[in-house]
Every structure is written in structure tokens, then in C-alpha cells.
């Protein structure tokens, strides 16, 4: 009998139409926890990281954590792991809603989708019954349409993860959409799903998750419940204003990247912030499975050219489609956000790519003729139009759909790409947050805010306050309480947003009674480190080197204006300290003894030669 875990991994081969079930290796689960860790470990056993991302050999792995679906606070997360189509790094995109728990209720810890179908198909998983069915009826439909159709074709309570037209058309910014509006967005995981011609996965589970010690588990859940509902960030501002409650805070700090990172203060931020969203377009807040925070915004623009309804925009979306493009009209931002959802594409990459195109246009590198219309910063109508074209891969959108790295390269201005390892940065300026600068540069999936959001320390003082501009000890901070910790949290199935209120201790207090396995604080530190190192090795084997751990040149220039004018990302001296702390050599490769310590030495020969 398995506790916490369900004990089964489902493998579906779309080339041969085969479905097999494998037992979960509990020893592996103990080492890699679940979710992000376990799915990454499974991926490393499946492929050599050198393969082409958009090939049938690249599997798509949906993973859940041992806490996913247990009903402890905020246990809704599932992850999607593969070699990333956008970046070529390891991808791990995660999402909440109700889809992740449903995987568990149907009896699976992870789904491994391999091969490639010749025709559009969807997967219908009903407890232990698994069918591969034709999706000719669904191809071309938006996620909302797909979900309602599939709930008619399968079961009214099926939970659906699917791709939108963006994924079908292999946009490298495509994500996987579940519960209508939620995206496992980044790294282009939706493009791989589209390449596999897998339109959707419909799941219906009538089983449950066993708990090793229900009484202790309930006690720990109530304890965590009290901590989260007593927390001013999670249960206060996130509930009242969503994640976009950060907009005004970050902007007032002068750390809100604007107009493709040309500046760090947006004069109209207040118009697109969380308070404005709540005031102007919010219909209702809602929650993912078992989540007290309820940061989801159900919003509606009731009339006018930007009429629409959906969820969001959340913080990163209102930034990328707003400030980053210089757009201050909330309704236009909301509309662009709805459209991204309809096409199933990542809002951050979409906004950033359009911002990059705007800069190319304004500097004359890109002509009106090529785009079809003038695309200037601040032109909201043009921005919305560009989103639509991107989703449809129509006209110039065909070029936008592959992200800003490829766009900037194509038009001879690679310096306009604002990201790392082909992934666009998010809404915390690395010129101001020195922790974020180091984190963006070294993150395993490219510039990303959820691989180690040091803003918690640099703004909220969680776990302790470190002024943004201070550099001392940031290497250690980035490594341990943020990067490694995030790797662990993402592996448990709990949402990262709980981390404002709780630490590993509370999570381990849930993991142990849920699984019956001795999860504890000390081991969680090693588990996080192990997962991070495994991902790093994947990237090294895929061809990445220390030279890729670098920020775009622009952010090393002083910030031109705003409250923190003059500040800039100071990275160079600190990367080596970071490598040393990680137990890596100066090339950024883990040493043999480090790998031995983490029990990872069996993997490809990518570790350091000198020890």
C-alpha cells in the first residue's frame, strides 16, 4: 500500500498507441520527492539531453508531488517536464487548478507521454481505463472550447489539460492549459505537446490519496492553515489584489522593468496594478484545489473593443503586456491576457517578444512593411493586434511566435533580447535586485522568477531582510533558501506562494504523515540541492556552459531614472563564489565529490575533471 504517492506511473506511447503502467520506485521517490524532482529524474532516465527538443524521442512528463491532492493547504500543483523547445534546457513548468489532484485521484503519480501521433488525439484517462481517442473534433479550438467539448465527450467532471491553437502551430512560447485558464506556461512545453499531436488529456479519478497517519496529517494541515491564513502577504494582499498587488510595490522601488528594460519605473503602473484590477474588472476571486490564498482573479471587461472574460491578469502578465510594452490601458492588457489564454501561449514571453519587436521597430531595425502596422511602445491597439497575430502565427506573428531571442537575432540586434538561455526575464529588475540578477543568470530553465524568488527577502524580508543592493552573502542566499528550496517545494506538490508563510519544516511535517517516509528538514535541504544539480547536469550535457550563465548587457548599464537611478546588475565577481558554494568548478560543473554526496554520480560524464 502506498501513502501520499499512488504508486503507479502511466506510460503512453503515441507512436504505437500503447499504454503501460509501471510501479513507482519508492527509493527514487525518497531521493527526488516527487513533482519536479521525480519527473526530472524520470526524464534523465528516458533521454540523452543532446536530442532535439522537438523530436518524438523527447517525452512529455506530467508529474505530481506526494502532497498533490491531499487537501493540505495549497496542494494543487502538477509539473510538466521535458527538454524545452524554447530554450534547449530542461523544462519544468508548473500549474495549479484542479488537474493535478485529479491525476492523483485517477491513481497516478506521473504520466509519461512518449512518441508522436500521426493524427490529432486526446487522452481519456478514467481511473485505470486509458484510451487514446481522435481529436479531429477539437483541433483548432481554444482551451475553453476544448474543455467544454471534452467534458461532454468524456465526463462532466473531467479535468482537462490541453493546448490552444498556439501549441498546435508549434509556437515556441506555447504552454499547456488546464482548468480553462491556468497555464504551465514557460519554456514552450505546449509546442512539444503540439508536435506530439496531443490536443488534450482528460482525466477523471474516483479514487483517493491514502494517508499514512491521517490524524497527524490533519493536525499538520490545521497548523499550516493557521499560518497561511494569518499571513499578511498570502492571505492579505494576494487574496485582495492577486499577485498583481506587487505592481505598485515593485514600481515604487524603481524595479519594475519598463519598455523592454530600457527603464525600471513605469509612470502608469498604478493603472495596471492589482488595486486597479480589483477596482475595475474583478468579478470574483477564486481558488485552486484546497488553497486558502485564492489569488485567482475572475475578471471581465464588459464592453468596448477589449471586451472579454477570463482569469487574470496576474502580476507577470499585467507587467509583460503592460509596462514592458509601455501600455497603460488595463482593459487592453486584460484583453491581451485573455487572448494569450485563448491561444494557449505564455504571457511573459509573448509580452516580452512584442516589447522586443517594439524596440526593433522604434530603432528602425524592423519596418512597418514587415509588421504590417506601426508597433510603437505604448500603442495598446497594436499590442493587442500583435498578440492575436502571434497566437495565430498570422503574418508577422509567425516570427513573433518563436520568442524574442530568435526575433532579436533575426533582425541583427541580439542585444535587444532581454533574457537568459533564450528565456525572457520577468518583472523584477536585475539592476535593482542583485539576488534576482544572480538567480536569473544561473537558473536552470533560463531567466525565471519562480526558480528562486529572492524578492521575498529583498522586499518582504522573508526569511530575513537583505537590502536589494547588497551583494554580500547573496550567493548563499540564492543557492540555499531560494533555488534549492524552490526545487524542493516544487517537488512536493505545494504551491510556492505558501512560502511567504511557511518553511520546509511545515512542509516536512505534512510529508512525513502523508507518506510514512521520514521526510525531515535536513533531508529536504539535500533533496533540493540534488534536484538542482540534476537539472544542471542535464543542461551541461545538452551543451550549456558557464558562458551561458550571463545576463543581457543592458542590465549591467545603470538604470536611467526612477528611485534607484544608477543601480545596475553586478554579477561577474559573484558567479564564481556561487559556483564554489555549490561545489562546482570554475566552469560551473559539479565536482565528482559533490555528485557523490548527492548520489548522482551515475549520470552522464559531465562533472568536473579535477576534484
Amino acid at each position, binding site marked *: 500500500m502506498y501513502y501520499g504517492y499512488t504508486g503507479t506511473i502511466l506510460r503512453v506511447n503515441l507512436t504505437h498507441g500503447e499504454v503501460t503502467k509501471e510501479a513507482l520506485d519508492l527509493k527514487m521517490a525518497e531521493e527526488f520527492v516527487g513533482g519536479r524532482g521525480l519527473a526530472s529524474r524520470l526524464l534523465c532516465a528516458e533521454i540523452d539531453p543532446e536530442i532535439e527538443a522537438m523530436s518524438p524521442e523527447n517525452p512529455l512528463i506530467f508529474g505530481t508531488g506526494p502532497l498533490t491532492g491531499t487537501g493540505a493547504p495549497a496542494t494543487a500543483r502538477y509539473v510538466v517536464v521535458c527538454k524545452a523547445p524554447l530554450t534547449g534546457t530542461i523544462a519544468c513548468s508548473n500549474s495549479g487548478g484542479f488537474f493535478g489532484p485529479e491525476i492523483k485521484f485517477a491513481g497516478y503519480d506521473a504520466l509519461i507521454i512518449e512518441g508522436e501521433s500521426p493524427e490529432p488525439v486526446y487522452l481519456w484517462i478514467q481511473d485505470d481505463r486509458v484510451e487514446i481517442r481522435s481529436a479531429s473534433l477539437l483541433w483548432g479550438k481554444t482551451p475553453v472550447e476544448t474543455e467544454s467539448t471534452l467534458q461532454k465527450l468524456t*465526463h462532466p467532471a473531467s479535468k482537462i489539460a490541453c493546448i490552444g491553437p498556439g501549441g498546435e502551430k508549434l509556437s515556441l512560447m506555447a504552454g499547456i492549459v488546464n482548468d480553462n485558464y491556468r497555464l504551465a506556461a514557460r519554456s514552450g512545453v505546449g509546442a512539444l505537446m503540439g508536435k506530439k499531436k496531443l490536443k488534450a488529456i482528460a482525466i477523471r479519478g474516483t*479514487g483517493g490519496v491514502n*494517508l499514512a497517519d491521517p490524524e497527524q496529517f490533519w493536525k499538520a494541515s490545521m497548523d499550516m492553515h493557521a499560518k*497561511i*491564513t494569518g499571513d499578511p502577504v498570502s492571505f492579505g494582499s494576494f*487574496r485582495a489584489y492577486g499577485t498583481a498587488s506587487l505592481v505598485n510595490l515593485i514600481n515604487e522601488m524603481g524595479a519594475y522593468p519598463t519598455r523592454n528594460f530600457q527603464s525600471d519605473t513605469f509612470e502608469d503602473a498604478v493603472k495596471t496594478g492589482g488595486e486597479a484590477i480589483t477596482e475595475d474588472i474583478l468579478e470574483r476571486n477564486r481558488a485552486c484545489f484546497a488553497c486558502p490564498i*485564492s489569488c485567482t482573479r475572475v475578471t471581465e471587461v464588459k464592453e468596448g473593443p477589449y471586451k472579454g472574460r477570463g482569469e487574470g491578469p496576474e502580476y507577470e502578465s499585467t507587467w509583460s503586456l503592460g509596462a514592458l510594452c509601455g501600455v497603460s490601458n488595463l482593459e487592453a492588457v486584460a484583453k491581451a491576457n485573455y487572448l494569450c489564454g485563448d491561444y494557449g501561449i505564455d504571457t511573459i514571453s509573448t509580452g516580452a517578444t512584442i516589447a522586443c519587436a517594439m524596440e526593433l521597430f522604434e530603432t528602425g531595425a524592423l519596418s512597418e512593411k514587415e509588421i504590417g502596422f506601426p508597433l510603437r511602445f505604448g500603442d495598446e491597439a497594436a499590442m493587442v493586434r500583435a498578440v492575436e497575430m502571434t497566437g495565430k502565427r498570422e503574418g508577422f506573428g509567425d516570427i513573433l511566435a518563436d520568442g524574442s531571442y530568435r526575433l532579436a537575432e533575426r533582425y541583427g540586434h541580439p542585444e535587444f533580447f532581454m533574457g537568459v538561455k533564450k528565456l525572457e526575464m520577468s518583472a523584477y529588475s536585475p539592476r535593482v535586485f542583485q539576488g534576482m540578477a544572480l538567480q536569473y543568470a544561473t537558473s536552470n530553465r533560463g531567466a525565471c522568477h519562480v526558480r528562486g524568488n529572492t524578492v521575498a527577502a529583498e522586499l518582504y524580508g522573508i526569511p530575513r531582510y537583505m537590502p536589494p543592493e547588497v551583494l554580500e552573502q547573496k550567493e548563499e542566499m540564492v543557492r540555499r533558501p531560494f533555488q534549492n528550496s524552490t526545487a524542493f517545494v516544487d517537488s512536493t506538490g505545494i504551491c510556492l506562494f505558501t512560502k511567504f508563510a511557511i518553511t520546509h519544516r511545515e512542509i516536512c511535517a505534512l510529508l512525513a504523515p502523508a507518506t510514512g517516509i521520514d521526510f525531515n528538514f535536513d533531508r529536504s535541504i539535500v533533496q533540493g540541492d540534488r534536484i538542482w544539480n540534476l537539472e544542471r547536469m542535464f543542461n551541461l550535457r545538452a551543451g550549456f556552459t558557464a558562458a551561458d550563465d550571463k545576463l543581457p548587457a543592458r542590465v549591467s548599464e545603470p538604470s536611467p531614472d526612477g528611485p534607484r537611478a544608477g543601480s545596475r546588475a553586478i554579477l561577474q565577481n559573484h558567479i564564481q563564489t556561487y559556483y564554489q558554494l555549490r561545489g562546482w568548478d570554475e566552469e560551473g560543473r559539479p565536482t565528482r565529490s559533490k555528485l557523490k554526496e548527492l548520489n548522482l554520480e551515475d549520470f552522464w560524464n559531465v562533472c568536473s575533471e579535477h576534484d
Partner: protein
Amino acid sequence: MIMKKLKADVIIIGGGIVGCTTAYNLSQRGADVLLIEKNGIGSGATGRSGGGIRQSARVSNEIPLAMESVALFPGLSAELGIDIEYTQSGNFRLVEMPDHLRPMQVDVARQQSHGLDVRWLGVTDVLELAPGLRWQNIMGASYCPDDGHCDPFRMVSGFFRKAKEFGTKVLLNSEVQSIEQTDDGKAVVKTSTHSVQAEKVIIAAGFGSQELCQKIGLDLPLQNVRYESMVTEPLPPILSQMFGVASSDLFFRQTQNGGIHFGGGLLEEEDEEDTKTTRDNLNMAVAHISRLVKDLGKTNLLRTWGGLDPSTPDGMPILDYLNENVLLATGFCGHGLALGPIVGRYLAEWISSGQLPEALEPFKRNRFDGWLQTKWTPSGAFAAVLATEDTQTSGRGTVGSGIPFMTPPEYDDSEDEGLHKLLSVNPEMCTGCRMCESACSIEHEKMVRQTGLRIQVAYPSDDFFLPIMCIHCEEMHCMEACVYDALEINDYGIVSVVDENCIGCMLCIPACPTGGITYVDSKETVVKCNLCGGNPACAKYCPTQAITFRPIDDEIREKMETVMSKHLDSRIEK
């Protein structure tokens, strides 16, 4: 062009089954009837229908009428002088997936409580009665032996011909352009060629009735549900009954000449009358029936057509006067063929006597008053967001911060000390997180699951969520329904389940107005809220105080009952 002027006692608009049966009954009573039809007789929903004549799988309020109507069918062929190919061979609703098993069994219990002979059959019993089915994909079925099927064309033309024999006048291919009232209390119906004056007008024009009603200034909650039908070449007799499926997206029967008449597909709701067919939908229905019926692989299709189901929010027709002159009979939701004979008889009685027949009481249009925003749920039933007072005023806008969901209402419970502490639900605060379900499940089942729960969150729309459970009502309908002494009143004064007496007959489930009782497979008994012995886990775990444990009075209880009973269909499990 000169308008031809005519006079009649009654004008019937619509030459479908309801129009024709009503014309037949009225003219038989000696009334001067004029029937106006836009195209031809039976060219709308009637002629496109599946031919099923059933009483089972109806909503409770419609069952008595359906039973009365089915009783007329055996004599119809003789009465009309035409063989309508009626066979009273039974109706199956096949269950194909485990999830539909319990809901179907509960539904069988509900129908039985209305005196209908309907039973639950396991797969072997189904196969014995219908050997043409493939067992592999069937888990069982509800079966009503008195149901059957007939040929819709023969039936409607039989009524039409008899009506003409009794003197009904007819205008075919004539579209009604206006319905007006004269000063002396009469109605005038105009087509492009005729102007007809009459005492009464009956609108029985299927989905087209919507437009006619709009012409006299009324907007009804009517939608067209599109499905697609087809018929194969004749086969030797393999199926005698009428078949449907639990998911409602397929029906089939074998006609007397041997063709398999089947249809379904995605039930799409539309605001227009649309009879197109699509390859995808047809393929889907073909794939579906092939999973259920043996050896259809090489059979050719002869003909395909699009079907129409003019439907209302609650799955029942509207039979009511719109003003002094105009009587509406539409929205049969695909049940018109079966109800036609009895509805025609009652409408005739209503027109001639001026008295609303008691049997038609449940079909008044004012039952939709207050259904502000109607919305289809995936199960095909309508859910409605509550009327203004429930969702829009309470709590919202009253709190200082300006964000209603951030501050739960403050309860002053000091005056209510004499009252029992019970669970109180405030949907204004609910975020749909389902933490109450988890808490309940861990508390009672020692694990987390989403089936067999004592409390469930309903999702009527994307911004309205509602926990549904036993509200410990004073009427205790469940106790009344239980015949095995499996429910008792415990020390706390609420109904609780006596596990050893419960045999899992589920009679209590449909009796509960708020969906408070659930059957649990693993236990083979029902479960319900017992307030966790006075310290409910759900209220403790609810992060937003959408569920609180406090003294509640009748008014709150009544309010909760109204809300919950309206949203039962939006629960994940039923």
C-alpha cells in the same frame, strides 16, 4: 397583393406533433380550427426526432403527464386508422462508465418514488433482453418495460389527417408575420397572404415559437439543442427496444423496416434553428454506437439529418397563456412526440372549458421568474445563478475595505442562544477551493477523496461557488423516505445514519432537497453530515468563513435550502 381574410375559433401555429394533436382534439370537439405551418407537416423537431416514447428519465414533475400519455399509445393506430409502428418494448439507458453507475441508480430510485415501473439491470440482465448489444462497454442500464418507440412521420400524419377529416383548415408553407390583439378582445394572425381573426391562438412552433413570442414582447428562456441523426440500410431484426445512454449523447432503435435509426453527437446549445450535419459529429455517433451494438462495421448509412430540440432550463415544456388570446405550447426538450397525444387533449380541454387542467399546473411560464442568468451545465441540465437578493446584495458592498470577499459578515449570535448550532453557508465568501471536502474526507474516511462525500462544492458558474450538504431541516424528508429504520435522530437532535440497518436502497437520496445524502460504494451504505459530533471539520478548515458553525434560524435554513436545491446539478458528483 390582396390579403385574404379568414375567421376561425382557434388558430394553431405549427404543424408538428403538438399542433396536430391539438387540432385533432379541438376539431373533434366541434371547434373551427385553422392550422398554419411554416413548411410542411412534421418538418421541424417532430419529423427529425428519434421516435422514442418514454416515461422514464423524465424530471419528476413531468412523469405523471408522460405516464398518462404513454397509456394512450396502444390505441392510437386504431384511433387514427394508420399503423404508427408503435412497439411497447421497453427503454434502456445504458451506463458505460463507473462514474454514471451511482447517479443512474439514484435516478432509478427517484423515478420509482413517482410510481413508475423502472428498474436497474446489471449487464447480464440487459444482454438477456437485448442480445444485439456488445457487453464489453456496458455496465448496466435503467430499464422501463412500458416505454417504447414509434414512427414519428406516421404518427404526426395520422393526427393531421384525422384533424382534417374533422374539419381543420390548413395553410401550409405559410410563415406567420404578426400576432395582434384587436380592441374587441380577439386575435389577428397575419401571414403574407392571409389575415385571420380568431378567439384563441396556440403557438406550437417549436424553437420558432421564440421569435413569435418576441413579436408579442416576451422573451423566453428557450434554446435549441442541436443533435444529428441518421439511419442505416435495413438489417435483420437485432434490437427491439429504444436505447439511450447515461451521458445523453446517443440514442438508437431499429425501425420496423430494419434500419437502425440513431443519433446524438455533441449536444450544442444554439440561439438559432440549425439543422446542418457535420462529419465530426456523425463520426462520433457512429463510433459510439459501434461500441455498443454488435456487427455494425460494414453497414451503410442511408441518410443523415440534423435534429432540433427546443429546450427550456428545467427540461420541461412551457404550456401557458401569454396573454388573454395566445396560448404557448413549446420547449418540449425532445419529449414532444411522447407527450403530444395527452398535451393535445389537455390543451383542447383548456381552450374549450377556459379552465387550466390540473395536470398542466407544473408547466406555467412564471416558474422561470427569478432565474436571472441561465446557463447550461455539462450534464445538460440548466443551472441558474440566483436572483438578485441572494448573490448580489448580501455582503457585497457593505464592508469598509470595499472588497467584499475580504471581510466575512459579522454574526451577532448572542440573541440566538436558544437555537441549535448548525452549519451555515455563505456563498459570497466561497472561493471554490474544496477545502471543506478535504477536511470532511480526512475526518470521516481517513483519506482524501472526491467521491462519496458528505459535503460537496457546486460550481454553477465561474464566479459563484456553493458548498452543498445536509442542512438538518426540520421536515426530515429523508427519515420519511427510509423504510429500513436506517436513519435515526441522534442525541444532538439531527438525523444520522444507522450503518447496520442501511441496505443502500438510496430512497433517501432523491428525497433530500439539498443533496445532503450520498451513497458510498465501498461501504454500500449512505453517508450524511453528522456535524462531526459537534465540532465540524469543514467549518474549522474553511479559510474564508464561507462555512460557519453557529446558531441558525428558520429563515437562514430556508434560504440555504433554496440556494442548494437550485444548484444540485452543478455538483461534481451527483
